[in-house]
């Protein structure tokens, strides 16, 4: 059988990845803009294409709870949510990570209210920053498909055993159709071993208790162990990405995507859909003779410290676009980058740009304007800079 290329939205691409990953249990609760993923999976199940059980739960809290129960028994489990749904399941998201359950979830990013707002920013996603989930943010439907399949392989790796989240922006990715190349089922089966390989935590032949009271000293070690495992997961992510590259021709062996960074003196850093605009801006600026590049953070946790360090060794100026804000502090991605630079002793000009909040579009013009204004010394590295549709606010 040869591969097919379908025109798919990001959400349908995710659903196809779930189909090809032979997921067994899908608990889910509807919320815009996640809904069409689950509807599509439901269709796969009802038409007999996917042998899975859909558990149509009464809340997101229960969606993740069902996922926890199912994953603890050792079956492949997937769910998806957004925004208020993500926050509603929050407690259980941490539970999944600390119980070391290889659940995979899609988080379609959406602004938190009030006021109600269905458009994208990354505020919901960023609440998962410290949770122990391995977190990817992708910039198009193809990546959503590719990384969702890889996510199961990473999560179920016995040296990793952590839940994995794949995030992307509402509508711009979730509901925008583009050509996506799919693996054949045979290829996917070869890449991703049988779900039965997942070691169950709940097993009548090994009557263990999951989550008993620890001594604090031991619990500290458990926490440290998760931290070590998520850092070590970089290796698994790279290996799985390389293997997937060999299979599909699309390489994911790096935690980041560098675009024209080799000789760049200025590098934009962003994640998600706006990375596309950032790269377009790089092309325009390169046409004008400016040495700029763009770095897309695809693996957000574990954080690509090494890749940032390498970029900062060659560049003079970093411009970080955050689509989420730590209220009372600054751009969240900026803080991540700044702390990496500080640890590495790299003191370079770094700007904190807050863009795309509440679903406002971020255009290549925004990237270009910021670039010019940093060159002319108009912008302050000591402050968070808010830009909305080409205007400082």
């Amino acid at each position, binding site marked *: 059988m040869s591969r097919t290329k379908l025109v798919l939205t990001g959400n349908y691409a995710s659903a196809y990845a779930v189909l090809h990953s032979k997921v067994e249990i899908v608990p889910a609760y509807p919320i815009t803009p996640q809904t069409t993923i689950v509807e599509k999976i439901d269709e796969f199940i009802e038409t007999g294409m996917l042998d899975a059980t859909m558990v149509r739960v009464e809340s997101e809290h229960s969606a993740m709870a069902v996922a926890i129960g199912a994953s603890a028994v050792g079956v492949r489990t997937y769910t998806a949510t957004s925004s208020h749904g993500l926050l509603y399941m929050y407690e259980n998201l941490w539970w999944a990570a600390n*119980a070391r359950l290889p659940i995979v979830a899609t988080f379609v990013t959406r602004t938190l209210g009030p006021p109600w707002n269905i458009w994208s920013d990354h505020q919901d996603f960023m609440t998962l920053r410290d949770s122990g989930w391995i977190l990817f943010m992708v910039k198009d439907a193809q990546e959503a498909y590719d990384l969702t399949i890889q996510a199961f392989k990473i999560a179920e790796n016995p*040296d990793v055993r952590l839940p994995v989240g794949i995030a992307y922006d509402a509508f711009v990715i979730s509901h925008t159709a583009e050509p996506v190349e799919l693996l054949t089922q045979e290829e996917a089966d070869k890449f991703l071993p049988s779900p039965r390989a997942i070691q169950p935590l709940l097993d009548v032949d090994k*009557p263990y208790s*999951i989550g*008993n009271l*620890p001594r604090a000293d031991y619990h500290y070690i*458990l926490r440290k*162990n998760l931290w*070590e495992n998520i850092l070590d997961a970089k290796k698994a992510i790279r290996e799985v990405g390389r293997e997937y590259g060999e299979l599909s021709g699309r390489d994911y062996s790096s935690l980041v995507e560098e675009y024209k960074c080799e000789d760049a003196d200025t590098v934009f850093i962003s994640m998600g859909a706006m990375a596309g605009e950032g790269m377009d801006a790089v092309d325009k600026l390169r046409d004008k003779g400016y040495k700029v590049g763009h770095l897309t953070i695809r693996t957000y946790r574990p954080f690509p410290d090494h890749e940032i360090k390498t970029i900062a060794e060659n560049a003079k100026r970093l411009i970080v676009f955050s689509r989420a804000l730590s209220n009372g502090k600054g751009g969240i991605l900026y803080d991540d980058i700044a702390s990496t630079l500080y640890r590495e002793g790299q003191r370079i000009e770094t700007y904190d740009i807050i863009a795309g909040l509440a679903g406002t579009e971020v255009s290549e013009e925004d990237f270009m304007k910021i670039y010019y204004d940093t060159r002319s010394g108009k912008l302050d590295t000591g402050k968070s800079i808010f830009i909305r549709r080409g205007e400082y606010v």
Partner: protein
Amino acid sequence: MGEVMYPVTEPGEGAAGKTGNWRWQKPIIIIDKCVKCGLCWVYCPEPAIYLDKMGYPHVNYEWCKGCGICAHECPSKAIEMVSEYE
């Protein structure tokens, strides 16, 4: 690579240590009065009462917390609670 540590525990006695040390009063079974009804065994929440071959109950003082339920439930008053401090 660090091996994954799971928050799991194997079962076993004494999760809270030797709970027999919690006792301030101690059940004493007077076998002569016992009619082997089994109720002390039924109602012990620990469980800290076991039956011998003949069906007579005995207290496992390693775990018995001295709650006194067995004594209260015994229909033939065959269990006496005595202070641990006298």
